């Protein structure tokens, strides 16, 4: 009888197995500080390509310092020191020209910071134009592509010549993400990108990070553990300048290996 034939089984998506992904950046014995006080005390970790890695930890643990060392933005602060090795595709990031490094490792900051004198399109194209690109067609194409990747195209496509600062906070932050994506970096660093935004804007940005990780590596510093859990495949837990634990997010949040990690994740301190 036909009704007795078994239904075809629904396909079950295999969970992502990022353990085998190549390594995008590795950090060896990184020590950094400002003036006399050391902030990072010998950090070792590896960032896997085309994944989202979240860095969590209580205030003062050094997570912002760590991420700023990755594209040498910490050098903008006088008195900042950084020793050790940061390998990007085999080259030591601390030894090459920082300008070239930053074209491959972009950054989005905590507070949205579009250039105030530029329009939306000019903001997105800034990385290209300031570095000498003149081809108008290429610029226009890159602007559209970057705005689409940042999930902002539909909202601004009719007002590309409006001032960048006229957008809402969440839109400005997505504009900054588009601007960073326009130079096609290999790695995108985000330093608490959602902390100045409301939950809806935050959700949008989390969604777009999950989308773009297929094309580039994402590293995000966040003080919101649930955000780290939602968005990342790998999590790094830092405490007082040391890397305590680093591993798959799904394991860190169900069976952390280190008691300090467990205490932080369950809110027993922080």
């Amino acid at each position: 009888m036909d009704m007795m034939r078994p239904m075809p089984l629904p396909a079950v998506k295999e969970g992502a197995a990022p353990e085998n992904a190549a390594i995008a950046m590795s950090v060896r014995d990184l020590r950094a500080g400002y003036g006399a006080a050391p902030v990072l005390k010998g950090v070792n970790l590896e960032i896997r390509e085309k994944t989202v890695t979240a860095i969590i930890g209580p205030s003062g643990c050094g997570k912002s310092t760590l991420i700023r060392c990755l594209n040498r933005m910490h050098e903008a602060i006088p008195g900042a020191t950084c020793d050790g090795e940061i390998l990007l595709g085999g080259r030591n990031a601390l030894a090459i020209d920082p300008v070239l490094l930053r074209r491959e490792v972009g950054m989005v900051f905590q507070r949205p910071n579009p250039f105030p004198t530029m329009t939306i399109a000019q903001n997105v194209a800034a990385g290209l134009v300031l570095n000498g690109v003149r081809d108008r067609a290429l610029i226009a194409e890159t602007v559209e592509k970057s705005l689409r990747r940042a999930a902002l195209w539909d909202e601004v496509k009719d007002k590309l010549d409006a001032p960048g600062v006229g957008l809402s906070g969440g839109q400005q932050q997505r504009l900054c993400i588009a601007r960073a994506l326009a130079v096609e970096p290999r790695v995108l660093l985000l330093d608490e990108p959602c902390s100045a935004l409301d939950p809806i804007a935050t959700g949008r940005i989390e969604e777009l990070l999950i989308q773009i990780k297929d094309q580039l590596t994402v590293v995000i510093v966040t003080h919101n553990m649930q955000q780290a859990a939602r968005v990342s495949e790998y999590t790094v837990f830092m405490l007082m300048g040391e890397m305590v634990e680093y591993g798959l997010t799904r394991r860190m949040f169900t069976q952390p290996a280190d008691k300090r990690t467990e205490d932080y994740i369950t809110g027993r301190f922080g």
Partner: protein
Amino acid sequence: MKRQFDADLEDLRARLLRMGGLCEEMVHYAVKVVVDRDDSHLSKVQEWERQVNGLHIDIDEVCLRLIALHQPAAGDLRLIAAAIKINSDLERVGDQAVNIAETGVYLLKEPKIKLGDIPRMVEVAAGMLKDSLDAFARGDVELARDVIRRDDEEDRLKSQTFNELVTLMQSDASAIQRGMDIILIARNLERIADHATNVAEDVIFMVLGKDIRHSAEKI
């Protein structure tokens, strides 16, 4: 840092242990109906069944609420996941106990029959139930492992009982009714032991984060 959440988790444990305690009582008195041929205990068992069912609903609600409101992680998450499963197993234990009591009442209408291994099965099952609940209360992984090892004996006793009674029923057709009842009671007791084993496995998962169900490696 003691959190409000810790008080909520304590409350959850307390409810589960209360439910476990009720189940233990139910098993004890249900068996008395069979062994002492005394149906006065039936109403007690049925009353406790009502309480166990109430707790079954409560505990699931509490677990859902804790997950929704607190986004638990790591050890807290494993505790709540284990609680949901233990809740389900204990409710089934209650059902099995009621079945034993009701079968016992039917047996009263029949002439007496030899109980054979039933008392030993009761000892093993009740012991496993008690120890699995103790293991949960204390987070005692060794005790939980011990409970799991004892399940083999219960299975063996059930097969033995089954064979003996089949032989009896083949030789004496009038014994079929009560023979079947005894087999059902053996089955109930074996199921109680299985549920206790489940509880023990959940305790190991809760404490160690290791899921040892269905795996050959149990030690």
